């Protein structure tokens, strides 16, 4: 083995000697090399600002509170014995899955509605529907918060006018969870809408015509034409959104600060509470890293999907 390596390198050297510069240039000019260089900025960005800090955070999560001792997985074992942590764990899943489901559902319905009206009117509906996604959520959540304010709630005023109940939006466990999901759905549904609308537009009309000729009912057309054609985009957007929603920070942070009784804490807000407010950075990092088992499952799905996509490329 060793010999052959030496031989080949000698060969390389001897070959390089007369026209080394050129050789290098040729190598650098090869298609693979150019391709690599084109990806280099991406690699530097991801390795420097995602991968490295990520592993650093993993390292942090294995230190004691004062960050003076390496404690292995103790922080993780500590967490799995805390009831509050499991509550946060379940809440995060509940929040992410419910919010994503409703974002997708509302986005899907609204996309069809817009697709159904004459093209000239579509621009306006589309534009109006996209407003929530365009206002920075840290600021629009403040608006929601003011709408939900216990004493000044304009929503409750409206409910009172029509004889409805006074809803404790942010103080009751159910309603507080409902509220953070609602705000997230409100903010995120337009993104789904636009993705689905784009997808609907790419479905060839002939497919529907063919289905109609075959006597397919409207439900059958939805089931056998629309869904299959949109399957990919639906799964991709839902997966993407689940990841982002699971890591959500600002909505719960601003609206409920995790209350009442910690029942609206998510991974992000709880990690911040422990790490920054409580000064236990390793434990906070451990909480954030607990998202990973959940996310890893999603990652498998994404990878499969992306691989299929890559195969087609």
């Amino acid at each position, binding site marked *: 083995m060793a010999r052959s390596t030496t031989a080949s390198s000698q060969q390389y050297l001897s070959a390089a000697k007369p026209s080394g510069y050129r050789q290098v240039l040729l190598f650098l000019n090869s298609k693979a090399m150019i391709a690599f260089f084109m990806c280099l900025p991406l690699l530097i960005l991801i390795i420097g600002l995602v991968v490295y800090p990520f592993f650093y955070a993993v390292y942090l999560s294995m230190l004691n509170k004062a960050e003076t001792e390496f404690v292995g997985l103790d922080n993780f074992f500590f967490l799995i*014995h805390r009831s509050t942590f499991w509550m946060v764990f379940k809440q995060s899943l509940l929040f992410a899955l419910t919010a994503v489901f409703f974002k997708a559902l509302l986005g899907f319905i609204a996309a069809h509605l817009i697709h159904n009206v004459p093209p000239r009117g579509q621009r306006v509906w589309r534009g109006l529907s996209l407003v929530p996604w365009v206002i920075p959520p840290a600021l629009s959540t403040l608006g929601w918060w003011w709408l939900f304010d216990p*004493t000044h709630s304009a929503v409750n005023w409206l409910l009172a006018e029509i004889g409805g109940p006074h809803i*404790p939006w942010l103080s009751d466990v159910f309603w507080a969870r409902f509220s953070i999901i609602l705000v997230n759905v409100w903010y995120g549904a337009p993104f789904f809408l636009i993705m689905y609308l784009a997808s609907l537009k790419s479905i060839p009309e002939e497919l529907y015509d063919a289905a109609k000729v075959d006597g397919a009912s409207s439900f059958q057309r939805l089931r056998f034409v629309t869904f299959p054609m949109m399957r990919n985009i639906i799964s991709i957007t839902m997966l993407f959104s689940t990841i982002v929603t699971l890591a959500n920070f600002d909505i719960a942070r601003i609206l409920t600060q995790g209350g*009442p009784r*910690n029942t609206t804490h998510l991974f992000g807000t709880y990690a911040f509470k422990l790490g*920054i407010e*409580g000064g236990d950075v390793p434990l906070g990092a451990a909480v954030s890293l607990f998202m990973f088992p959940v996310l890893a499952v999603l990652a498998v799905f994404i990878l499969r999907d992306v691989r299929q996509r890559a195969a087609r490329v």
Partner: protein
Amino acid sequence: MAHSLSSRRRFIGTTSALGAAAIAAPYVKSAHSAGKLALGLWDHWVPGANDVMAQLCETWGQDNNVEVTVDFITSIGFKNITTAAAEARARTGHDIFSLPTWQVTIHEESLVPVDDMVEELAKQYGPYDETAAYLAKHNGTWRALVAPTGTHTYPMVSRLDYFKEHAGIDLQELFPIGHRDQAKIDSEWTYANFLEAATKLNAAGHPFGNPIGPTSDSQDWIGPLFQSFGSEMVNADGDVTVDSDATRQALDFMKELTSVMPPDVYAWDDAGNNRWIISGMGSCIQNPPSAWTVARRDAPEVAAQLWHHDTPSGPAGRYRGTLPYLWGIWDFSENQTAAKDLLMWLSQKEQTDTLIRASNGYDLPLRPSFLDNTVWESEAPPDGVIYNYPGRGNEQIIVAGYPAPPPIAANIYTQGLIPTMVARVTQGGESLDDAIFWAEEELAGYSR
């Protein structure tokens, strides 16, 4: 409100090398502080307070040939403590940083010892309040001074008219400007009496309202309340002591009190009680004078009926919550001598007085001998509205979590353990035993 919002960051240039000797500082001041200093201070919400602070720093900087930069960093969204974490970790940033309550404990290792300064100031003006030592002195070493700005406490803020009309209590008479009858207060202003009054006020449609949630205002009234029943979550030795008769009593009391409070208090943030009293619905809250100040702007007729006064007492005494700010010097500061000089100068009574006045009396120095500022007598309406804000009676100033060892107490406070325990009983309907068991479990995790 307007003008204080502008230009919070200032660059203060050096103008003269003269006048270093003009500062009368008994502290053994270094002969020549020079160079640059950067301060990260709490962004004061009182209009104009930041400007006065910046002005003082500028004056000192000119006299000492130091280029002083001041950043006023808000506590909103935990901006200030996030920045503190960033600087401690990156080991770069300001020289002096204004750290709220628990941040000195958290960053203990990154702060320069200031024992000599604390000692010198104690010689001049007498010692700090005990709470200061609890929060800033760790393992026998002082890591910070009490900031002259930002520190505030949580007295009761009550409607004089409602209390008189519906509860038959004349708060102005009980907590007058000037001489008070402490024996009368001790017999008439207890939590039992307060509950009675709160019940009547609720019946009249003007309940007592205070948040019971994760934010700091919640800790700052419920923590002292539990203390006044004798309930300690963790004792000074670090033993979990939440399971006690005192805790049960306090929880029972909260059950009754919450039954006459608005049901939304579990969602109130730090401004929830402010809005409650300003809206005219509430009869009483616990808050520093900021609620009254806003009422003076937005609802003057409400403001004119407000009165700041002592908290009620319980079986184990009378306690009031505080949220102190402490000034530390980062150990990565390259100009520690100048930082100490400036800090020392600002801690003098003259400067502190100026700053208290600039805050309209909102800031409370945690040093009893500094409480003779006339600003607390002169604010109005009504005349003397915050006379009792500095604490004229026998209240002890504490932070929620006290007397647990500070790293544990920090968790009790930041994770809102006490309000959460209360809410589990009063809102979640858990039994006292279950809630206490839950708290014990949580506390076991805090001392890791």
